[in-house]
Structure formats: structure tokens, C-alpha cells
């Protein structure tokens, strides 16, 4: 390296030595609240996480094989019902939805029964 490039190099890395920790600190401290609501039963575990002010993540773990022919995941926002998707077998499922969803219902549409009804307590 030439002397001028060495000078630039040294200056850049001294600047980054301050900029990176500051950036990491700000990125962590300004992260939106990630409130987590949980529900657990022998067959399901549900976690609702607020990712930011426009997205909520609903994570459903199906612990045992389903005993229902269909299982639709519905989110309820006051009076609106949103079909988020379906779960079909043992495993993990993620659904991104609106943060205003305050109730999750798992429904067997074929039998016409509610499998689970879980209320999200919003702050």
C-alpha cells in the first residue's frame, strides 16, 4: 500500500470502530417491542410476536398428529375474520398477519367445530 492509501485505510477503520458499535446499539435499542403472547396445550403451542407496527407473527407448533380432517387458522380483528392458512400435520407453522389481530381460532370446517380459541391480550 502507498502511504496515502495507508492513511485513508487507518482513518476509515478508526471511524468504523466507533460507527459499528453505535450502529449495533441503535439498531437494537430502536427495535420495536416484540411482545409475545403464548398458549400451550398438549396438542398445540402458539406464540404471537409483534414484529413491528405493521406485522404480527403467529407461530403454531402442532405437537401431535391432528385428530381433525381439516384445521384452518383464523385471525379475528374486532369484527373481521381473516383466514391465515391451515395446519395439516405435526410440525411448526408461521403466519404473518396484522398486529390488530386479537384472537386466534383453529377451526375444523368439515366437522364444523372449533378446535382451539385463543385470545391475545393486547397491551
Amino acid at each position, binding site marked *: 500500500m502507498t502511504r496515502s492509501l*495507508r492513511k485513508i485505510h487507518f482513518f*476509515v477503520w*478508526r471511524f*468504523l470502530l466507533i*460507527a459499528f458499535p453505535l450502529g449495533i446499539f441503535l439498531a437494537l435499542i430502536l427495535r*420495536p417491542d416484540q411482545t409475545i403472547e403464548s398458549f400451550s396445550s398438549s396438542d398445540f403451542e402458539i406464540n404471537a*410476536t409483534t*414484529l413491528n407496527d*405493521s406485522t404480527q407473527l403467529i407461530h403454531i407448533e402442532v405437537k401431535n398428529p391432528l385428530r381433525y380432517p381439516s384445521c384452518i387458522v383464523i385471525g379475528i380483528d374486532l369484527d373481521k375474520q381473516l383466514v391465515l392458512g391451515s395446519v395439516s400435520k405435526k*410440525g411448526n407453522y408461521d403466519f404473518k398477519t396484522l398486529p390488530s389481530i386479537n384472537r386466534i381460532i383453529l377451526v375444523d370446517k368439515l366437522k364444523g367445530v372449533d378446535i382451539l380459541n385463543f385470545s391475545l391480550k393486547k397491551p
Partner: protein
Amino acid sequence: MSASYQSILWNRQKKIYDCIILGFVLLYLIVFFVSNAFINPEITQETIIIRGTATLALLLLHIILSIGPLARLNPIFLPLLYNRRHLGVTMFAIASIHGVFSVVQFHSLGNINPILSIFVSNTHLGSVSRFPFQILGFFALLILMLMAVTSHDFWLHNLGARFWKTLHMMVYLAYTLIIFHVLLGIIQYETSPVLVTLLGIGVASITTLHVIAGSKEHRKDKSIRNLEKEGFIKICSVHEILDNRAKTICLEKERIAIFKYGNKLSAVSNVCKHQNGPLGEGRIIDGCITCPWHGYQYLPQNGSSPPPFKEKVATYDVKIHGVDVWINPKPYPDGTERPAAIIQ
């Protein structure tokens, strides 16, 4: 070192180096894909590819950026520097896969151009959690592409070592963009502390290494020598220079390397014409000063590469009084023959 251009000048070292790179890349991807298939069986293959290539490219970038300062601090790391450009091109190829899969996954289903979609689909520039972080990744990939396509001696010779080196120092900008791409992207949604901890360790290691190495070089550049006579400056005793090695000093603008070979001393510019490597940290091999970075060679008495090569560096006058080595810091034009100082 070559008198003509070839796509890659393969030799045994390069083949071993590339096999290790390829083996590591394949091993990483296999472990990542298999472990994710068990841990997160619900995520799609495209998502696994996006995540696997992202983490691998970031890891490789950290390795690449650590090689330079490590080689400055300890010559044991010089073999890693030799073929670093292959590692860089590999990293770019992996980062490209991440970029292409991300654009296809997140931007190709709309009715506007997917590339344009990166810039217009999210305009929350004032928000941290919703910042359009993909734009940062796009520009970082653009810089890495420029570097990858010019990672060849053809471009090095045609652009000139200084411009080429400056262009390739843009990797620091690319690195900054990538770190903020991660901080404003996945870190905003990731609840596990593992990723942010690993990122913190990586960033701290790289910046600390560069600052330590830079500080060492800065101290060398600042060393002042006062004793001057008839334009010559006293440097050291002849015994301080090892056989077939050099002592490097910084007098005016650039560093000078004083080589001892047999009972002779010659001084040349410390800056290799290839990639500005530190000639003074090299050795005399087969009667030629050999750059420690990529093996470019120069004759010590005239700073010229042996025929048919055409590289030349500046030369300096050296003389010996008793056991003291004196040097005139005024450089002669590149390739000028100067008589070697004879050690009695």
C-alpha cells in the same frame, strides 16, 4: 507473475487453496441445509438457500477482511493472502445467489420490474424497524461485483495499481453496507440473541484487527531520523539487516526497502508495482527481490523485473560509512541502475 494474460495461472498452491475454499463452502452449505431441514422443517427450500448463502457470504467476507491485517501483524498468515482474490470471487458468487433468490422470492410476483421493486416497495427511510434494508444489500452487491470482475491482472495493469487498489478498498464501504443491511433487516425481527452476538463478535474482531495493524503501520511511517549529511540519512548498522532480507524505513513520501544480499546493499521503493505489496517484507530469491504477496520479482541493483517482465520500481543511492548504512531519500526514476554499496 506473467508476461501475458491468462484467465488463471494455476499452480499447486492455488489448486490446494481453491480445493480448501470449495470444500469449506460445500461443507458449510450441506451442514446448514441439513440442520435447517431438521430444526425448521416448515421453512421453504428457497428461504434456506437465502439464509444459508447470506450467512456463508458474511462469514467469508469476515475471513477475507481479516487476512490483510493478520498478514501485516504476522508473516505466518502471508500464504492466505496469496490467493485471496479467489476467495473474494467465491464470496461474491455466493452473495449473488443470496441476492438473486431474495429478489425472486420477495420482488418477482408484482407487476413492476423486480429490481425497481427493491427501491419502491418500501419507502420507510425514516424508520429503523421498517427501513428498506434490501437497498443497502443491493449496493453492496454492486460494489462486490465491480471488485470481482476487476479481480484480474488484466484490469490491474490497465487501471493502474493505485486506482485498482483504491477501487478494491471500496470493500470497506461494501462491508459497512452489509453490516447495516443485516442490522436493519433480520436483526429487527430475530428474537434469538445468537445472530446479533455472532455479528458483534465478527465486527469487533475485524475493526480491532484493522485498527491494530493500521496503528503499527502509522508508527512506522511516523518514525523520524535526524542525522543527515550531504543529502544522506543514517539508517542503521549493516548488522541489523539479515542476509537476503531488507530493512524498511519511511523517509519522505514512501517507504524504502534496503536489501542485503551477499556483501552488497541496494535500496528500492517498498511498493510493488503489482498490488502495492510491501517488497521490504519479501526476500531475495534467485538473486531477485520477491514480493511476499504474489511473488513479483525485481533485480535489487536496478529495480527492474527480469526479462521478459516489464515492472519497474524506483531505486535509491545507498552508502556505508564504517558499519553504518546511509541512504539518500531522493528516488531515481523507476528501473534506474544504481551501484550497490559494498560491505567491507
